[in-house]
């Protein structure tokens, strides 16, 4: 390409003189035509990756300083998916909060809901009935498997394994089928409510979930066979994105990253909630602290989650799924009628024809909500990405005074620089994938 043509090209690189020498701004095109004969001996490239890059898991933006193909500096820029969920909850009642928090980390909605509801229950001083607790455990573990499948599928896709993507998404869809059967929705369930869960399990659930567990074990084994011995997969992951336990603790990293570095820290074991101490499962760990060990740990975690689901199904006892206190429990007794799901006919008859007090009560609880005594709590659950914490503050009213979410993706993403600086730019992709950040949770 002639110099003349370069000068008239509207997409040609612009350049300007700075204190650090001449700086070119490039948005694409061929290297040869970008520079017109004055390529400097020393090149420092600043590459802006994202926020629309397909391998940044949504809208993460990375600013990478490169020397050749080596990353010398990595900075993460976030906030592109900030929706003000924390602020929004302050203008809704406590029950409506579940509908908001479920949308934060959209790959683990049931964890968000459960962490939030455990916080509200702690503030109220109530405990969900045993059947509701078992249902929560059951749904969360199915959700964990689904979340890890998405991690495997997207991570595999980014590293060039299309089969991992197709198999992972197929298996994830099976998990979502079960969640849809129970909650009516594939994502954003708002099924876990303060005091219990929204409704009881549907008929035929136990057979369906047992068949699901069998299918998942086959799928997990299939992925293990596909990837564990795969030389390209090994070379892309082994020794890449190293972070040891000290680094994890300093940066606040929890979840599979911490366990892959060798510390068996799993809140289900260390600070059991919802009766996790009664389930028989193991906390998989690895000692290498690289992307490969995170892969191994997550695959084994899926297997353990299926194991917990099987135990949870076995220990489902009949009983209520919501606290008996009618000042807290949602009044709508849902049932499936000829015209679809709605308030049960008996409940409508009762409030419309028999008891004015019941009608007032229904109205007050739905429009106004219940009061939560003033105070603050911090509750945690082990989400697929680590410690999911909820700092809830009540001023004594029907709405939260403050809901802060300690989202594990947000904190774990701080490890980007530690994982990628000094490595190759191609390995940045593997490192991000191994963190498994969900930007909905990071930005909230």
């Amino acid at each position, binding site marked *: 390409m002639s110099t003349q043509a370069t000068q008239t090209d509207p997409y040609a690189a612009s350049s300007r003189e700075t204190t650090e020498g001449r700086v070119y701004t490039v948005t694409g095109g061929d290297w040869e035509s970008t520079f017109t004969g004055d390529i400097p001996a020393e090149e420092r490239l600043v590459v802006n990756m994202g926020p629309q890059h397909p391998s940044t898991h949504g809208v993460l933006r990375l600013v990478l300083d490169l020397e050749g193909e080596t990353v010398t500096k990595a900075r993460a820029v*976030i*906030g592109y998916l*900030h929706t*003000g969920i*924390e*602020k929004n909850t302050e*203008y809704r*009642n406590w029950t409506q909060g579940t509908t908001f928090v479920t949308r934060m980390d959209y790959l683990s909605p049931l964890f968000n809901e459960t962490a939030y509801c455990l916080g509200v229950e*702690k*503030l109220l*001083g109530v405990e969900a009935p045993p059947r509701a607790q078992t249902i929560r455990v059951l749904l969360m573990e199915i959700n964990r498997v689904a979340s890890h499948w998405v991690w495997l599928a997207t991570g595999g896709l980014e590293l060039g394994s299309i089969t991992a993507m197709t198999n992972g998404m197929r298996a994830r869809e099976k998990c979502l089928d079960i969640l849809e059967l129970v909650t009516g929705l594939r994502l954003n369930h708002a099924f876990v409510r303060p005091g219990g869960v929204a409704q009881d399990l549907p008929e035929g659930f136990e057979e369906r979930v047992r068949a699901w567990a069998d299918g998942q074990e086959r799928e997990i084994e299939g992925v293990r066979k596909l990837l564990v011995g795969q030389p390209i997969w090994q070379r892309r992951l082994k020794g890449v994105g190293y972070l040891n336990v000290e680094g994890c*603790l*300093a*940066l*606040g*990293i929890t979840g599979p990253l911490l366990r892959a570095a060798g*510390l068996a*820290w799993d809140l289900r074991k*260390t*600070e059991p909630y919802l009766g996790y101490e009664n389930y028989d499962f193991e906390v998989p760990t690895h000692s290498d602290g690289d992307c490969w060990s995170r892969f191994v740990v997550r695959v084994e975690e899926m297997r353990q989650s299926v194991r917990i689901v099987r135990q949870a199904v076995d220990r489902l006892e009949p009983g209520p799924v919501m606290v008996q206190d009618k*000042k807290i429990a949602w009044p709508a007794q849902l049932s499936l009628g000829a015209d679809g799901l709605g308030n049960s006919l008996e409940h409508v008859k009762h409030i419309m024809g028999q008891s004015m007090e019941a009608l*007032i*009560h229904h109205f*007050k*609880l739905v*429009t*106004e*909500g219940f*009061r939560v*005594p*003033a*105070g*603050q*709590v*911090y509750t*945690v659950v082990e989400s697929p990405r680590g*410690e999911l*914490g909820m*700092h809830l*503050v*009540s*001023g*004594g*009213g*029907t*709405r939260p*005074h*403050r809901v*802060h979410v*300690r989202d594990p993706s*947000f*904190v774990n*993403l*701080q490890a980007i620089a530690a994982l990628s600086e000094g490595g190759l730019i191609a390995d940045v992709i593997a490192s991000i994938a191994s963190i498994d950040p969900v930007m909905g949770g990071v*930005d*909230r």
Partner: protein
Amino acid sequence: MTVGQPDNDSGMFGVSGSGDTSGFGGLVRAEPGAAVVGHSTERPYGGYFDEVADLLQGAPGSLFDNSVTRVVVDRGEITFFVRPKHLVALCQHLRDDANLRFEFCSSVSGVDYLDTGSVGVDDPDRLHVAYHLTSMTYRRRIRLEVTAGVADPHIPSVTGVYPTADWQERETWDMFGVIFDGHPALTRILMPDDWAGHPQRKDYPLGGVPVEYKGATIPPPDERRVYQ
């Protein structure tokens, strides 16, 4: 500041403003709770809390007496209210002492207590920052709380002790306008760089989209009529 007084605005049934006569609010008075008011819990605190407090009181240089203003135990959680000046030294001790080993900072979050109890706009205790510390060694959790006013919202940064606080302090700056002195790069993190104001403060105007339908407009959420 007269926090800790019973809330005289609410009636017998804990109702204020809405004219609720159903008694639905029950007999739970909207008392400003432990988080809000200036009261302190008496010993014994129960559980491991006494041990942690004893260990802190035994810290050299009367660190406890200098730094901790009051201790609140509520709903099975302990909160140490800390003077900002001594926050970093206290965190350092909590992290490094072999018998405490709070090596993990779970969460840093801000809370604006405007309009609870009698906390006013210029109250020097209006903004709180809560640090949730975890001891993985002893499996314990505590909360440190530091307060500041909007006129002088300075709190020392704990990033030197807990590097994980980096982004969380940036978020607290972004949302509440708390300035963490000593933070390596205290810039906005969730809002755009050129944003004005701190959205999670209680007096931040929400605004709203004026949706017109046959002449009616929908006010922003903080100006709507509410049932509570």
